[in-house]
């Protein structure tokens, strides 16, 4: 199976030959890959060099936490890659942004109102959790729509709070 994996700007071509062998950008390596205690902590041996990392699915793609550094990775097999190329990459820009509660908590204040224009980085909502007030900011410019909560509401994890369209 052949994969194209992106980390930041870099692209790696990785072919999984079998359980023990991969080819990374044309160079063959002997590997041993195993989960530690059925957890997303993985032990990887590459030609005898030992690495341990926390690998888990993120918002988009995979997150690899290795030696205190987080490497966000996008892994696609050849079919997925062709599909995406056919669709084009302008989809993301048209997407609405839905603000989900990153943790359960209490809505302390909502400094915006429906229909208001916001810039990237503007505070949309203040959520109190773990005794801290956390400012949730807009990742893109747009206008506030579908405000689903009010000040004083308790919200659950991943509950949709409002949208920026």
């Amino acid at each position, binding site marked *: *199976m052949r*994969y194209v*994996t992106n*980390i*930041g700007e*870099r692209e*790696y071509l*990785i072919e*999984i030959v079998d359980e023990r062998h*991969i080819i*990374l950008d044309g160079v063959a*390596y002997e*590997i041993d*890959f195993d989960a*530690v*205690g059925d*957890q*997303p*902590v*993985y032990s*990887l041996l*590459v030609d005898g060099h030992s*690495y*341990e*990392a*926390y*690998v888990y699915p993120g918002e988009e*793609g*995979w997150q*690899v*936490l*290795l*030696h*205190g*550094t*987080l*490497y966000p*990775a996008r*892994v696609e*097999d050849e079919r997925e890659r062709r599909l995406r190329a056919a669709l084009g990459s302008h989809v993301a820009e048209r997407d609405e942004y839905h603000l989900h509660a*990153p*943790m*359960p*908590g209490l809505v*302390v204040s909502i400094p915006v109102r429906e229909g208001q224009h916001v810039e990237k980085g503007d505070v949309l909502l203040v959520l*109190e*959790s*773990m*005794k*801290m*007030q*956390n400012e949730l900011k807009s990742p893109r410019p747009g206008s506030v729509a579908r405000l689903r909560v009010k000040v004083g509401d308790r919200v659950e*994890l991943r509950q949709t709070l409002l949208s920026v369209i």
Partner: protein
Amino acid sequence: MFNKVLIANRGEIAVRILRACRELGMQTVAVFSDADRQALHVRYADEAYLLGPAPSRDSYLRGDRIIEIALKSGAGGIHPGYGFLAERADFAQACVDASLAFIGPKPSAIAAMGDKAIARSTVTRAGVPVVPGTEGEGSLSDSELLALAPGIGFPLLVKATAGGGGKGMREVRSIEEMPSLLQAARREAEASFGDGNVYLEKLLEGARHIEIQILADNHGNVIHLGERECSLQRRHQKLLEESPSPFIGDDDELRQRMGAVAVRAAQAVGYVNAGTIEFLVDKDKNFFFLEMNTRLQVEHPVTEMVTGVDIVKEQIRIARGRQMRYSQADLHMNGWAIECRINAEDPYNNFMPSTGRITHILVATGPGVRVDTGVYPGFEISPYYDSLISKLIVWGETRAEAIMRMRRTLEEYKIVGVHTNIPFHQTLMDSHRFMGGQYDTRFVEERFSMEAAEEGKVDRSPIAAILATLAAHRQTKLAAQFISRGERDTSNWKWLSRWERLHR
């Protein structure tokens, strides 16, 4: 003299206190909220009683219930830990009124030091220098504060009179932004402490936050246990502490001078038991009294590591009316200790708190390592309490050894299920400024970023790419096994149920 102690707290500190009681051969009583039925402090205590629903005000802040439980269970002493009721003079008084030993200072000392305005005027009279600010007035209105602000000068801090831990605190750069920041500070102070009063304090730039641990008994002995460096903070929450302070280093004259002033400040309020005097120290080594914390501190273990004194045991001994086991001459700082506060928060997402179930922990152990924690695999991190899940403390003969040991330990420590700030600490350990001990209270917020710090690091992108690809491949393969028929000797239904049982 009591032989049974009620611990009016939760989390790692409740476990820490339980351990001291156990080692002293004392009986222990835990209290817990609905959210903490399975918490470690409940499991480790000899007795445990339910306080009420998860929110603090219905459980860990219910002083009346706690005293009732102490009396019912026959506990003679109450240890409040930190936070919650630890610095509430009314609770300490209620304990005394119920003939229970409050393991901490006298109510009068908590009141004097707890109201920061009174604290400042008290220590000023004892000849201790203070940071310029609004003092002595107690509760001032917004308009009074706005009138006083230009006299103190900007930038300044709005701080909660009843506060601590950065709650109800706001930094003000100009008079224009002050009214809204005052509102926010009052609101947060009201929510956290039930008291919306605030005061103003000049913000010393480039300052370090260094504190002195003191111990005092009922026999007139007051000693100090050296300093802790606490300048590494984010939004006024401490993240890492060390002892000694790299800024004081081998300047023992400064250390003894600060220690003597701390002892004087404690004596000014007739202080008994463990306490901490916080100082701001400017680059010319001038130091100013900031506040006194009339309780056990989160970061007390670094002092324990370098002095060899078990502060919690000493607290209990003092509360039982005994003399301290140490005099000033007995105390020497040996080696270097560093503590990293491991919080359930995501350093890659603006330190957003992270809740959820901890599924797996690989504990860091080995020479010179101490882990104080209240969690275990299967424990749920709830949104009701603070995000501290563990304290990782290391000791080394020198600061360099302590840093290398902390690096090693952070790499070993894996907590799965919630995000933690372990990568933040790892990045910090690699930073040249930290290694050189060159940091002040603004360092984390102004001169430190996870991204920038990563530029100098060894790039392991190819390895990360292999890991991500293999993990993705494994997931794809698993999914494919449901759809490819006839390639297995068992039926798909059988296989599916096996797979589900595995992943339940």
